């Protein structure tokens, strides 16, 4: 129906998560109407991100140099490592302004049933970071998602770290009620965890 390049653009945009065929068509027409500079800037940014962005050598966060900005920052606290599943989990943690330690990105969560095993994640590298002779790590915060696979990953890491590095404290992000939510809508497992993790005021 459309010229072949437009069809191709619609097809490619339609491959993006959350983009259906109607939205892909709208985006394609938006790009067609945009100025040459705007369209070229979009194309260049996609090419640049693919060419230049890789994984941080130390923590596996996104990086356009050997180390990511967080690993390069000398003001960060070396004694705490926060373990997350994906690079996209780092940003929400940073937005809290509560955490000033380092990160370690696993690259997913353990799910042997889906073929994701210990060797498929950056777990050995986490152990190596903690075991380094000059390591000053005193706490590992397990911030995997509170999903079934995230919990399984946290349980596995906690057991392994207790055995390998008994002097390192292993903590887990608290689970509970979202701020502003109504108790009556809370599910039983979340409410149970919130109750178990209650604190004195």
């Amino acid at each position: 129906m459309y010229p072949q390049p437009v069809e191709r653009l619609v097809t490619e945009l339609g491959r993006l998560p959350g983009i259906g065929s109607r939205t892909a068509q709208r985006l394609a027409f938006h790009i067609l109407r945009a100025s040459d500079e705007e369209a070229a800037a979009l194309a260049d940014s996609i090419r640049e991100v693919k060419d230049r962005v890789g994984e941080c050598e130390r923590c596996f966060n996104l990086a356009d140099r050997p180390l990511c900005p967080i690993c390069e920052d000398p003001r960060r606290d070396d004694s705490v490592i926060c373990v997350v599943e994906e690079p996209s989990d780092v940003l929400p943690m940073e937005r809290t302004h509560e955490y000033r330690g380092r990160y370690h990105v696993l690259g997913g969560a353990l799910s042997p049933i889906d073929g994701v095993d210990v060797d498929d994640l950056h777990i050995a590298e986490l152990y190596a970071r903690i075991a380094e002779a000059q390591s000053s790590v005193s706490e590992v915060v397990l911030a995997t998602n509170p999903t079934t696979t995230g919990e399984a990953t946290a349980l596995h890491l906690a057991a392994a770290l207790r055995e390998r590095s008994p002097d390192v404290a292993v903590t887990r992000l608290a689970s509970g009620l979202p701020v502003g939510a109504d108790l009556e809508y809370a599910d039983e497992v979340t409410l149970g965890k919130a109750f178990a993790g209650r604190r004195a005021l």
Partner: protein
Amino acid sequence: MVGVPAPLKTQGIVLRSLRYAEADRILHLYTPDLGRVGAIAKGVRKPRSRFGGRLEPFFHLHLLLHRGRGELMTVTGAETVAGHPALRQDAGALDAAARACDAVARLFETSEPHPQVFWLLANELGLLDREPGRAGHANALAFRLKLLVAAGIAPQLSGCASCGDAEHLIGFSGAAGGVVCAACEASGFALERDAHAFMADSLGRPLAEAPDAPERALRQAERAIIETAEHHAHVRLRPALAA
């Protein structure tokens, strides 16, 4: 005027949950009335979702499902029957539950209802929640043997599946569909007495009273289960235990 179809009310167990789009999840559910069902839960990954954590794997739920135009139903309501919180605190029990759900998904992948499979899975998850230490090879194999019965492909254990002889049962043949005698063993593999007894006892007892057996016997029993599922249901079951 065309009315909006009423939502379907059913119980269901979440077998699997896959991230989809911005904040949705696609669920593989097993229900007593509709067999295996695919459903989408919209916005469930947002912290303020009204579903909360209810749609995570292994939850046993009362569900409201809306049938739309596509293949997937939409989850419009969910109330917990059992959340299995203790199971979620034990790595072994979590893995066993995932493998149990995977076996159900593989052996019963259609919408044909098998209420006995639903209740068997509900019992297994309940058992793993009450006694997470139960998670192990013997429990996993007893569960799979009962699944084979529900699928109508229970292995024959009382006599040779090839010639009917009730004596000298020393092997197992997936192709023949059960134990085989010395004369017919060429079509199968060696199955020792402990493995044979384990399989027969597992089928004769409730899950909570399933027997144990030496590891060597359990490995033979697992091979028998896998070959039976392959030959008679054309399904490749995943190993019952993590490597």
